[in-house]
């Protein structure tokens, strides 16, 4: 059951919510560091500024890649909020990321190339767990459709605690938070200049930032699914999860990419696959 209303609401509201969440992120981070921090509307000022800047690109194909990243990030989120197929959502999101990587490779800059390689490593690290999260929900609800999963009578998190924890683990990678901000990071952090973002500037960077807000809202929507039976509990869960991510971000140093891959695969295998195996075996008895 696809509801166009959900998709339209997502397309219109996600940048607003995503921007404010990013602003709260910066405010809370600043407070955690004993600073006052910028206004919570700062991400909007940043993006507004980026669209005021000169659109300088190294390679004209970057425009195409950035636009594709933007469109597919919106597509993935819109399909999710329309209640579409969760697997297709995950694949569309991966395709969006691949366009970002291609855009970084399009410029002949060593920093951008290292960033792109690291972004690929990150995709490799989080993809198994993201798929297992979708599979886990399928094993419990017998449907890949987000509308059916959201309509499941019961807390998915009770049946899928391992999958939920694994998802939180890779959420750190997806939100570009320490200790897994190896390809690029937010705030004033620097890593290999700016990693995958190095060669994007002006309006292109603005589009990437807005696409990231869309992605962020989609990922928090994914957290919502685990608690979908009661939306008040789900909202509280989202807030706790996000604050937890901020606490992790501010208390951890960046790790090497080897540890990022190994640990997220271990989490996917033990917590994700283990949880699903138990559910599957219990279901057969």
């Amino acid at each position, binding site marked *: 059951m696809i509801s166009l209303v959900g998709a339209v609401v997502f397309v219109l509201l996600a940048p607003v919510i995503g921007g404010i969440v990013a602003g709260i992120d910066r405010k809370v981070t600043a407070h955690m560091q004993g*600073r*006052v921090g910028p206004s919570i509307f700062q991400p909007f000022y940043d993006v*507004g*500024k980026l669209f005021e800047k000169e659109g300088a690109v190294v390679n004209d194909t970057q425009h195409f890649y950035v636009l594709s990243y933007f469109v597919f990030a919106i597509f993935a989120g819109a399909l999710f909020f329309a209640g579409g197929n969760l697997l297709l959502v995950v694949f569309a999101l991966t395709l969006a990321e691949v366009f970002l990587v291609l855009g970084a490779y399009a410029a002949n800059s060593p920093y951008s190339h290292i960033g792109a390689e690291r972004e690929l490593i990150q995709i490799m690290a989080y993809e198994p767990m993201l798929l297992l999260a979708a599979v886990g929900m399928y094993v419990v609800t017998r449907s890949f459709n987000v509308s059916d999963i959201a309509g499941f009578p019961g807390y998915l998190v009770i049946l899928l605690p391992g999958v939920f924890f694994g998802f939180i683990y890779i959420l750190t990678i997806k939100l570009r938070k320490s200790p897994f901000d190896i390809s690029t990071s937010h705030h004033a952090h620097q890593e290999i200049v700016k990693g995958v*973002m190095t060669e994007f500037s002006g309006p292109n960077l603005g589009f990437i930032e807005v696409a990231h807000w869309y992605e962020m809202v989609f990922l928090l929507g994914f957290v919502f699914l685990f608690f979908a039976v009661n939306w008040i509990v789900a909202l509280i869960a989202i807030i706790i999860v996000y604050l937890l991510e901020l606490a992790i971000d501010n208390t951890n140093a960046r790790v090497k990419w080897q540890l990022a891959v190994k640990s997220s695969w271990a989490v996917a295998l033990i917590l994700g696959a283990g949880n699903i195996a138990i559910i599957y075996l219990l279901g057969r008895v």
Partner: protein
Amino acid sequence: MAYLKKSPWLIHYDASSCNGCDIEILACLTPMYDVERFGILNTGNPKHADIFVVTGSVNEENKYVVKNIYDQMPEPKVVVAIGICATSGGIFRECYNVAGGIDTTIPVDVYVPGCAARPESIIDGIVTALGILEEKRAAMTSGVPREQPMIAPKEPAGGA
């Protein structure tokens, strides 16, 4: 609209500073002064930067680097010279390897003298630069060229 003034990202380059001014610039980012209140971010990427903050006098080796960073920054952009060395060459002005202040290499919009420049005066300089940044943006959108600061000629050692 004036988003530019609310979100200035700056790149800091140490031309040949003694690190005195650099430490004061970094002090601006600490909880004591916290320039992120004004949306100021210290970026390491010239392509994301709006304000080029240079410390120290430019020498003959790195003037190409300074020029390169400046050229990589997308318009509109401003240059702030921090410290007396960046402003005029300071006590190193007459050294054989020193080209002089930053304005011998790239056009400078704001001069913040001092040895070392205080965080308060650095913040004041950046805020002044924001006004110039906004003027440049207005000039860029209206198409009316704004008067650019001149690149100063290098004076021979020991004065003219």
